[in-house]
């Protein structure tokens, strides 16, 4: 049973560019959350998607946007990249009705130069 799959695993972009990260949730999960983990810090909540809509959002600017597809997979888009966007981006899936807790993917390491 595949867990959460994220692609690509690594990415290098230039300041000002746009990037799209992809996530396939664990089989049976319907909710996808995205987190940003900067070096030496814990993951920070970006947003959560359920039923193809953004349900919750953390303290991130509008440059960060997302999408969830009918098959529950999700994309994270970041526009006008800044050096400070360099981080590990983690996708986590869960079942809306519980049991509580996420299953995380291995992440996408984004480097902005």
């Amino acid at each position, binding site marked *: 049973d595949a867990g959460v799959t994220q692609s690509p695993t690594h990415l290098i972009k230039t300041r000002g560019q746009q990037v799209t990260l992809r996530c396939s949730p664990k089989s049976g999960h319907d909710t996808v959350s995205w987190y940003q983990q900067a070096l030496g810090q814990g993951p920070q909540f970006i947003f959560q998607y359920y039923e193809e809509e953004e349900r919750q959002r953390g303290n991130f600017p509008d440059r960060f946007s997302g999408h969830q597809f009918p098959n529950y997979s999700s994309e994270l888009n970041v526009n006008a990249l800044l050096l400070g966007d360099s981080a590990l981006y983690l996708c986590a899936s869960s079942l809306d009705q519980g049991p509580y807790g*996420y299953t995380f993917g291995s992440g996408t390491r984004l480097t902005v130069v």
Partner: protein
Amino acid sequence: DQQVKQNSPSLSVQEGRISILNCDYTNSMFDYFLWYKKYPAEGPTFLISISSIKDKNEDGRFTVFLNKSAKHLSLHIVPSQPGDSAVYFCAASAPDNYGQNFVFGPGTRLSVLP
């Protein structure tokens, strides 16, 4: 302002001894707490959780204690094994109508020495 704090960035323990990882939180609305373990180049993996209606939850070598009045929880690993060497994140959530949004602490790097 960090709502979930892990004040020890690192901890070293001898194999076979007890590891105690601590976590403090400031938001009194938090009612569910989890510990995640993260190895390099992997995503965090769920370890153990506790609801605010309990003060202890045990799963094999792992026990989590919750002290609501002190807004403090701890993870005990007994006995510690070299494979336990990883970064441990404490996470918390508050109830709402829209599903769970976890707030993570900065993590504690545990090294279990053989």
